[in-house]
Every structure is written in structure tokens, then in C-alpha cells.
């Protein structure tokens, strides 16, 4: 299997030409994978049951994910940069409404429009500068901030992505947080290089509980398959790897440090670093 990443070969509107677009209506393996990921993304959206919602499909392409949205009874608007892919969607007579647009230029919709957003295998395209004038962080921010505004309060956006490396992931999450989103990464089948899938789950306006990643039955090691980020700073872990000042850990560490320096330090007892009443 080729190890090349499509987004390194050409900009999306060039890569997804007619020949590539044909695969999305003829190659059953590609179609099956896209459909499965769409199902999982809708699951992660946690929409109210038995209610037809108005959704945005970013990078809708040939409409494979959109078809699943329609199947479940939702109405949707699909956005894509490739005319060839949208032509396939038109030929396939998808039920959603299609818009030709560049996600890096922002979502051209009024505030509070959509009940949710899905995006399958599209977001990583924003991380590469396809033109000299492109700045990936700026494009990501323009996309996320406009998306945040166009989502209804409490709506979610679920992105299935293929992150190239942790820097790219950090770039994406940093811009999403800057735009006001909370949420985190859900990883399905983290131990299988073939089955492993990444879903970035973002919440607009409310903090939600991050769904659990799927695990194959064989693991059972209880490996955490989530990385949650919120708008709040964590109170328990200092980013530089040191303990929070004045906590018991910090006191114990400081005493050890002073012992190493040869200073005279009281022995550790069960009262060491004990939490004192406020008047102390």
C-alpha cells in the first residue's frame, strides 16, 4: 500500500479530479470504509433520538457520508472544494444540498444554523499550504471560528481525520480551542494499526462528556483512548512536568531536593504536606 499522503501530492481541488472521484462511486472498498466512518461519526454526534436534524457535512465529496445522514433521516448541507467530486454527488442524486466552497475560507452560513457537523477525511487538507498565500493556522482558525458561529448552542462537530503527526494534531486542536470549542480526540481501536481511527469531537457552547473510543475485545488493558482538552487549565498537572506548587507532592519533592543538597531536613511522617486549615 502506498505510504504517500494525498495532501502531499496536490491541493484537494486538483487531487480529487474526475479519475479520483470515480473511485468514490465505483470502488466498493473505499465506499465501505467511508460509510463505516460516517456511521461512527453520526454515533459520536449524539443527536437527540428520533428527531430529524439539520446538519453540515464538511468535505462531503461524492456524498457517501451524506447518504448515511439521509438514511438516518437527517437533512444536510454538504460543502466541498472539488467540482469533480460534487459532480459525482449530483449524479448519485444525493438528498443534501451541495455548496462549492473552500473550508479554509470559512463557512458561509448564518449563526446558529446547524444542529451538528460531520466531516470525514477532510480536515487534514487544511494543514498544508497549497498556495504561497496560505497560512494553515489562519485557515484553520477561519474555518473553526466560522463553524463555531454557525453551529447552534450545544451542537457538536465530529471530524474523522488522518493526523500526520502530533504537531499537526496540536495545530488543529489549538485553532479549534482558540475558536471557542471544547472537546477532544476519540481513538477507536488504538492498538490496531489497520483499524485505528481518529475522531476529533468538538462541542460548541457547552462542555460535554467525551465519548469512549472503541476497543477490540483482545486488548482489555484498559488503555485510555481519549485525550480531552477543555477551555480550563488543568489543576492537577503542570505542563512542564513539575507538581503544582504547595501540594503534598511538591512538599515531598522539595524536601528530597534539600536532602540531596545536604541540608538538614525533618523526616517525612504521615503529617508531611498534610492539608492545613485556611487560617494557616
Amino acid at each position, binding site marked *: 500500500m502506498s505510504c504517500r499522503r494525498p495532501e502531499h501530492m496536490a491541493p484537494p481541488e486538483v487531487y480529487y479530479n474526475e479519475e479520483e472521484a470515480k473511485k468514490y462511486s465505483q470502488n466498493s472498498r473505499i465506499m465501505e470504509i467511508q460509510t463505516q466512518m460516517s456511521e461512527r461519526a453520526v454515533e459520536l454526534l449524539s443527536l437527540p433520538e428520533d*428527531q*430529524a436534524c*439539520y446538519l453540515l457535512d464538511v468535505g462531503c465529496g461524492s456524498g457517501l457520508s451524506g447518504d448515511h445522514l439521509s438514511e438516518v*433521516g437527517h*437533512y444536510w*448541507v454538504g460543502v466541498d*472544494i472539488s467540482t469533480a467530486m*460534487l*459532480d459525482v454527488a*449530483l449524479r448519485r442524486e444525493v*438528498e443534501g*444540498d*451541495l*455548496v*462549492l*466552497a*473552500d473550508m479554509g*475560507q*470559512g*463557512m*458561509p*452560513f*448564518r449563526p*446558529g*444554523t446547524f444542529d451538528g457537523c460531520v466531516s470525514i477525511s477532510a480536515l487534514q487538507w487544511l494543514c498544508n499550504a497549497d*498556495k504561497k*498565500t496560505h497560512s494553515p493556522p489562519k485557515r484553520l482558525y477561519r474555518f473553526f471560528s*466560522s463553524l463555531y458561529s454557525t453551529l447552534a448552542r450545544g451542537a457538536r462537530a465530529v471530524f474523522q481525520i488522518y493526523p500526520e503527526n502530533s504537531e499537526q494534531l496540536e495545530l488543529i486542536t489549538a485553532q479549534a480551542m482558540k475558536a471557542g470549542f471544547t472537546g477532544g480526540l476519540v481513538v477507536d481501536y488504538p492498538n490496531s494499526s489497520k483499524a485505528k481511527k481518529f475522531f476529533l469531537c468538538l462541542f460548541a457552547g457547552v462542555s460535554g462528556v467525551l465519548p469512549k473510543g472503541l476497543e477490540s475485545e483482545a486488548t482489555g488493558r484498559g488503555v485510555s483512548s481519549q485525550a480531552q482538552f477543555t477551555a480550563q487549565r488543568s489543576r492537577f498537572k503542570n505542563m512542564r512536568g513539575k507538581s503544582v506548587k504547595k501540594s503534598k507532592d511538591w512538599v515531598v519533592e522539595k524536601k528530597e531536593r534539600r536532602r540531596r543538597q545536604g541540608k538538614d531536613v525533618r523526616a517525612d511522617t504521615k503529617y508531611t504536606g498534610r492539608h492545613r486549615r485556611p487560617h494557616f
Partner: protein
Amino acid sequence: MKLLTHNMLTSHVKGVVKGYPLVIKATEVKVNELEFNAQFVSRMIPKLEWSALIQAAEWLGQSQDLPSTLIPNYENDEEFLRKVHRILLEVEVIEGCLQCPESGREFPISKGVPNMLLDEGE
């Protein structure tokens, strides 16, 4: 492009303040049939800019005695909901363009797909 989508579409060109509603200049319009979902229509009505919808319907010659202001208690008026369903989801602009009310910039519509791609600097 369905009128539900048009009601939500706005110009996202940098610096444009009032890029909504986009003026519709249609050269080809189609009317399809779509299954009626009263619950969905009822839920979408509060999200709509009603005056923009009426204006869009007029531009397409599809006004069909839709009231110029929302009637109260529309949730229980099936006839009304069906009219809204028709105008939102069954009427489609196939060819034409959308024009920004502030700048006059045009976004072409081809095969029912509006082209919202911006140029450098927009």
C-alpha cells in the same frame, strides 16, 4: 440550491457587514417532490429569516399565498406547514446567481450548486 439553504447562506467575504440575504437571480428553477416531515419543518421555522424566505419565494415566482409574517400557532397548522415544506425543500434553483446586497459581488449557481469560492484577499 434549495430555499432552506439560501435562507442560511451569507457572503463570508472579509469586510462585508451585511452579506445577507443574497439576492437570487435565477434562470432555471425546478420543483421536486420530497417527503413531508411536519416535525422538521416546525422545528426549522424559528431558525428562518421569514422575510428573506418570502422575498426569495417572490423572486422565484413561488409565493403561493405564503403569509408575509409568521402566523401564531403554526405548529398545528398542517396546511401551512406543507406550504412551508414546499417552499423550503421542494423548490430548487438550478442555474443563476446569488448577489451580495452590500458589495454586489456575484456567486454563480450551476447545476444547483452555488459557487462560494472566494478570491485571494476576500
